[in-house]
């Protein structure tokens, strides 16, 4: 369980995250939605100890992320940020294999190699496995990063915009994979998503943020209504049921 208690993060005078309290139960997929600058990414950064909070606490299964040793947390919680510029030239396989670093240090076991191969195969990176990251397209690189984070095989997986740069097919594949991690392996997936329809089709719970606060949270059915979405985005959004899914229409 992830427990966020009264977390505040300020940049200068503005509180980007303003006294957020939130509990995320183990298992399932939670999507955090909201407009630009709502504090989604900052909240995710604080929860994953990448950014220290100015106030409040975050615990993951009782471990305070601010004080628990980093290597211990790294075996329980994995995170991928949105803007990932990497200046080191690694091959895809080397990068994905580093996902096993928290578990086996530098020495990979046979089981580690199996996980690496499985992740590479799933994200269709087999042909690219020996290429360096700087020779890949943005979407290919994004898939390699996510493959690395999934290879970490942690109970909690936090992703900021995992669909960044991905085409439609790879976006759907990515979401299915995250869904399967929750359903088949009992993992807890928390992600920041821009596309409300991906959030609607693949998550159990949606958390809506606005101006640094959580303004609504609920099941996907509760959240995918015109009233809630209008309040979150300040935009008229029609919600239609198509093939049993609630789809928001906001393009025109």
């Amino acid at each position, binding site marked *: 369980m992830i427990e966020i208690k009264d977390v505040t993060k300020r940049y200068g005078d503005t509180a980007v995250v303003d006294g957020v309290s939130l509990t995320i139960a183990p298992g399932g997929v939670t999507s955090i939605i909201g407009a630009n600058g709502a504090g989604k990414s900052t909240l995710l950064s604080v929860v*994953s*100890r*990448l950014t220290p909070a100015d106030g409040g606490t975050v615990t993951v299964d009782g471990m305070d992320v601010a004080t628990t*040793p*980093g*290597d*211990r*947390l*790294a*075996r329980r919680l*994995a*995170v*991928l*940020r949105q803007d*990932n*510029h*990497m*200046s*080191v*030239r*690694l*091959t895809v396989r*080397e990068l994905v294999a*580093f*996902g096993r*670093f*928290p578990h086996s*240090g*530098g020495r990979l076991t046979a089981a580690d190699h199996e996980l690496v191969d499985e992740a590479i195969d799933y994200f269709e990176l087999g*042909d*690219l496995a*020996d*290429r*360096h990251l*700087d*020779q890949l397209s943005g979407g290919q690189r994004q898939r390699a990063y996510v493959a690395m*984070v999934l290879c*970490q095989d942690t109970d909690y997986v936090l992703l900021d915009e995992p669909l960044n740069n991905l085409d439609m097919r790879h976006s759907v594949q990515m979401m299915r994979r995250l869904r399967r991690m929750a359903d088949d392996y009992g993992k807890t997936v928390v992600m920041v998503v821009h596309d409300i329809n991906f959030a609607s089709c693949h998550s159990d719970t949606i958390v809506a943020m606005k101006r640094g606060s959580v303004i609504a949270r609920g099941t996907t059915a509760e959240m995918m209504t015109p009233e809630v979405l209008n309040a979150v985005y300040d935009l008229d959004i029609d919600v239609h049921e198509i093939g049993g899914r609630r789809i928001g229409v906001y393009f025109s």
Partner: protein
Amino acid sequence: MTRRPLLGRLRAWHLAAGAALLAVLAAGSLFVGVGDLTPAGLLHGRPEDLRVLVESRLPRLLAVVLAGTAMSVAGLVMMHITGNRFVSPSTAGTSESASFGVLLATLLAGGEAVFVKMAVAVAFALLGTFFFMWILRRLTFRDMILVPLVGIMFGGVIGAATTFLAYRADLLQSLGAWTSGDFSGVLRGRYELLWIAGAVTVLGYLYADRFTVAGMGRSFAVNLGVRYDRVVNTGLVLTGVITAVVVVTVGEIPFVSLIVPNLVTLALGDNLRHALPATALAGALFVLLCDVAGRVVRFPYEIPVSTVVGVVGSVVFLGLLLRGRRTGLR
């Protein structure tokens, strides 16, 4: 078709072949010099030949290999922990700071106390490097070229202060001993400090994976449970110690710590587990070749290794810069 890395995966036999080449060159280098030393003489056990070998040639060879290896690895580590492939001890003010330290130690403690000189040089090398890192954290730009340029300017300022101080203290001549690296003065009993640099290099290998992770950037490092700041500081101390020890024993050798790791990682990628041993080997080879060239070109006179390295290195560096511009400096 997928474009593979230049050399693909590093195999054990690549390293073995490199080591064999180094061994052959090293053995050959023992017989290059003014003093009388021939393989035949050695085989016959001529005491004169043995003395030249033990007192001069072997120490010189060891000094070349240790200095070349250590400086190259220091550069490799530094480019990882700073996330910039053109930041190395010679473009971050580290070497210049070490020289400044040696000068101060000489002024205060005289020319003889080697350990005092080394300790002060290490202290100043660290001080200079950490100051550069402090500047780096405050820079708003992260340009691949501008950042090392700031380091070169910083080194220039310290170099100017060193020269001024040496001029006032009438030590300009001694200053040349540290600022232009030269192996001609290496004799038994005068190079052994370099083993410290060798030992630190081996320690660096134990940290190889963590340096690679640190090179991925802070977020990735924290995610993988690596204590980013500690790894970065460890790397800075490692580079500072290596640089200072080399400056104290043989003097500054420019470019080695910059071009050797760049060329190796260009071919092999940045995974230090593979790149570090290859860099160590390549560094030894490069400096040995330059030293032998300096000994042969004007035989029986010598050109200091720093001059030879400077000439070769600047050409290679220019090539790297132009290549970097073409590929968008990734």
